[in-house]
């Protein structure tokens, strides 16, 4: 079997809802049936065949080639299998994703991994704002799974995040971990302004002190050796990420906040 490949024929003029193109929704469909699937694009419904060249037959291994940032909702509600994308993708990559794997060789737009419940998203590039966040008006962002970003993340990364991991190999934008409820965000690079703004619980793990320092809303709890970090780094070893290669450390400076709220979150900075 070969990967089921969707090659975008031309840059679309309108955004395209790609949510029907997941392993579970394509399972047991013939190639002709897949080509006949209609995708919502603005006010229109366009057939898959009119937008993509389709080849291959393995619905558990979906590949999107020649992608652009107008392809939204890729991997929505995905429960198994793999989707790989060459090129940029649009908004809501992996929305509500429960399991499986998505890998993007390009940049993603807003709401990557929004409210995802499990599985893994790896972005070999940069992401937009609200990675792992909650939709407007929703209380919980991602509740499980792992998002790996090899580049930089946008603003409000992990907004309302409830559980899971966001691992950023580059820099995080402003308001990283804003309104975070729980979970872990680790950043190898720098972080933007207002780190941990309105953070309730959860962990921000930094390998170096942010260039802007720690905000006044966080209190210094001192330097500590935390045993759980050894387990955390051990769990990173299986990842295809720089996080698998960083030397484990358990000695950190601990800051608690956001003290404007319940103040149960923490920023851990390697020392």
């Amino acid at each position: 079997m070969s990967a089921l490949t969707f090659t975008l024929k031309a840059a679309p003029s309108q955004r395209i809802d790609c949510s029907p193109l997941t392993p579970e929704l394509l399972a047991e469909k013939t190639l002709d049936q897949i080509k006949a699937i209609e995708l919502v694009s603005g006010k229109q419904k366009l057939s898959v065949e009119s937008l993509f060249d389709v080849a291959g037959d393995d619905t558990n291994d979906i590949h999107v080639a020649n992608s652009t940032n107008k392809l939204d909702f890729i991997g929505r509600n995905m429960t198994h299998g793999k989707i790989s994308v060459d090129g940029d993708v649009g908004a809501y990559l992996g929305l509500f994703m429960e399991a499986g794997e998505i890998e993007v060789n390009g940049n993603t737009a807003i709401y990557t991994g929004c409210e995802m419940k499990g599985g893994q998203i790896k972005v070999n590039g940069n992401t937009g704002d609200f990675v792992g966040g909650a939709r407007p008006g929703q209380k919980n962002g991602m509740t499980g799974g792992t998002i790996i970003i090899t580049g930089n993340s946008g603003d409000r990364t992990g907004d309302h995040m409830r559980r899971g991991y966001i691992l950023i190999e580059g820099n995080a934008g402003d308001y990283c971990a804003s309104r975070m409820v729980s979970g872990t965000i680790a950043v190898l690079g720098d972080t933007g302004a207002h780190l941990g703004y309105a953070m309730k619980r959860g962990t921000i793990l930094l390998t170096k002190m942010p260039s802007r320092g720690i905000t006044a809303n966080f209190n210094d709890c001192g330097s500590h050796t935390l045993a759980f970090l050894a387990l955390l780094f051990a769990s990173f070893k299986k990842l295809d990420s720089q996080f698998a290669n960083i030397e484990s450390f358990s000695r950190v400076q601990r800051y608690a906040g956001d003290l404007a709220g319940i103040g149960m979150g923490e920023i851990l900075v390697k020392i």
Partner: protein
Amino acid sequence: MIINGVTIDETFAEAFPMKGTRLIITAHNAKWAMISAQAFTGFATSVIACGCEAGIERELDGSETPDGRPGVSVLIFAMGGKGLAKQVETRAGQCVLTSPTSALFSGLDEETEMALGQNLRFFGDGFQISKMIDGKRYWRIPVMDGEFLTQEKTGVAASVGGGNFLVLAESQAQALAACEAAIEEMKKIPNVIMPFPGGVVRSGSKVGSKYKALNASTNDAFCPTLKGQTKSDLSPEVESVMEIVIDGLTKEDIDKAMRVGIQAVCDLGAEKGIRRISAGNYGGKLGPFHFHLQEIMA
């Protein structure tokens, strides 16, 4: 059956089903991991009065523990899941949580799980922090020496308790030496513990008593001082009997432990005053697991 002059009785040890789990206790160094493990497994020789049977399985180096620190694996068994959960929680709370630098992890992955640190977390008074790592939940509980890290749950295995054999010797010193040799070999077998002090029990019991309040009493048939007073199972030259009790995660584990233990006793042989190997059973009425000595040593 006679091995090196030691008679292996044609009898069987009778064991019963228990629920068990393995826990891994780590600490800053091996010394403190052992101290915590010894506290955790203290007063846990027999379910008759302790509520559980527990013991140290073996020491672990840093490469074998979840947090990379030296540790000790312990096994704990009780007659039922609820009883086991209660014992684990109280012992973990009083003996591991309190022990300097300790951390506590599950050492057994099973479908059936029970609380480990799930309720201990409330000691954190709201400052406790949960972390999901590789699909398992851990609790970080702030304590005065830093943080107590514990896994939320541990697996519960259907296990076997009460495997045993009796060493019948010409003197107390010879019985003790033989049991020490047996325990040294049996400790090398994984998945088993010998819960009595040093692995050896000198007060084997029978079911029932002349006193209504007691459901177990001394095994008078094997008490050498009663040879002329009761229906004794001892020959005139036997002056001391000691028992080794084994609890294990499976029947096969107990089989192995009994085999190496009895063999170690037999290696000393009649020359060292060992006369017989026997076993405690209750006519097959107590437990469904029967360990036939001659079959084990065949």
